[in-house]
């Protein structure tokens, strides 16, 4: 059952991810991205990380993507026309893909014994995540929050110059 669900939602997320790139219309791309976020949340849920799954939906699907849609709707962005093919993409695309595939294969071969156990992970509850964030990973957590604050201040400064 777990494996079947995993395969279904992994397939959905992959199809949606490809769809994000190949769709000509920004709104369709954004909706496909929501599909990716949603199926990722289901994958987290299958692995037993229910808090991460809920946070994934609330933050990414519920807040970030709504803002994306909002901007696309405000700008009234229309259908994108295909640009003439760039030289760099041709030269670097295929080697980069090959290197990435090799790296992935290397890491997968490194730990063949550590299979995925559905529901075997117990650190996914809200309590466990909170404990980890405020003990072992306190410094990274605080640094990230400062980083986000800087980003907000930066955005406001940039927006003010426009007026």
């Amino acid at each position: 059952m777990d494996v079947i669900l995993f395969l279904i939602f992994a397939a959905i997320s992959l199809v949606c991810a490809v769809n994000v790139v190949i769709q000509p219309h920004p709104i369709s791309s954004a909706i496909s991205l929501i599909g990716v976020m949603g199926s990722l949340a289901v994958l987290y849920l299958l692995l037993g990380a229910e808090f991460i799954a809920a946070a994934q939906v609330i933050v990414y699907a519920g807040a970030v993507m709504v803002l994306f849609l909002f901007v696309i709707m405000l700008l009234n962005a229309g259908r994108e026309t295909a640009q003439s093919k760039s030289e760099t993409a041709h030269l670097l695309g295929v080697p980069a893909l090959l290197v990435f595939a090799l790296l992935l294969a290397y890491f997968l071969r490194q730990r063949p014994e550590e299979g995925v156990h559905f529901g075997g992970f117990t650190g996914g509850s809200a309590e466990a995540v909170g404990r980890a964030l405020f003990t072992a990973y306190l410094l990274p957590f605080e640094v990230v929050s400062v980083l986000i604050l800087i980003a907000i201040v930066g955005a406001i400064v940039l927006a003010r110059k426009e007026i």
Partner: protein
Amino acid sequence: MDASTAFYVISLIKILVVFAVLMTTLAYLQWIERKVIAHIQVRPGPYFVGPHGLLQPLADVVKLITKEDLLPPYVNKPIYLAAPFIAVSMALLSISVIPFGPKIDVFGYQTYMQLTDLNIGVLFILAVSSVGVYGVALAGWSSNNKYALLGALRSSAQMISYELPLSLAIAAPLLISNTLSLRQLVVTQGGAPGHPGTFWNWNLFHGWQWISFIIFLIAAFAETNRVPFDLAEAENELVAGFHTEYSSMKFASFFMAEYANMITVSCMAVLLFLGGWVAPWPAKYGSGLVPVAVFALSGLIALYHGLHPARRMDRFSLPVVGVVFLIVAAVFLAPFTQSWLLPLFWFCAKVGLILFAFIWVRGTLPRFRYDQLMVFTWKFLFPIAVMNLLVTGLVVALV
């Protein structure tokens, strides 16, 4: 029947019952809303379809189903068709984690009066409702209509802004109850088996949590796009807002979604602050007799007016209503129904109270201006919610 078959059968029955009750409530909530607002405005409201307009919801459903389903030629078809579906399915989904009562015995099978209990129940509802925003946003965009687009933009901006104070207001009672499961929330507020349960255990009366409650209610009004925050469908500016281009059942889907969202946030308010299915005072001081008294009194009043009819119809309709109410009162007296009917009664009574407040506010308050709406949440509601959460967290940590 082995245990797993029994589980599936009972779950199926529970789903069917909850779905049927929810659908009926959705239809009749609209009738109640029209009646209450009519009486606030000193007019009778729906009156002609059935006694006191009681069959009006049925007539409305038939009308909406049989109306022509228009598909404007200029819309973005797949998204236009998907949007009402997203809105209504997300709105109905969140009822699946709401607990209506404690564990009960049905013919030897122990089961909870709840479809399923997630240990992240509160987050689940927040997640589902945040996905529901897409129904409104996509409907407005795909309609290819400037009024619809403006309505959708307003609505998504408003929902994102008010989600912050809403989540912060929810976090304060969660800190006190120390759980994310909706059933556990009620248990910590005096719903544990054997606990007498008084209103003093409710989170609303826990210190200054009434502040969280008020913030929650205000944000909930905005989240459900209700008056005074119904700028997404401000009739005098935007025709009908995001659902301008929708007709027939697709329009009805948005309508159902709005009312289902109202019911969900009312259930949330009751579970988070008002102790869920817990009676306001212990049963040994007679809280179990309240429903009997309420129904018997209503039945007697109806009977009296049936015997002294003001209108010709009343001679037939009111005695029937009175007898039904008296029968319901008698059912509440039967000992084997009390274990599950009493919690259900208190839960429904509290949810009904909040729903009445929703309707009352709609009949009383004018609409906000758009800039006032944003200034109100970002410069007033949000800071208060943050302060409230900080102080609550400090007190919970120290005590």
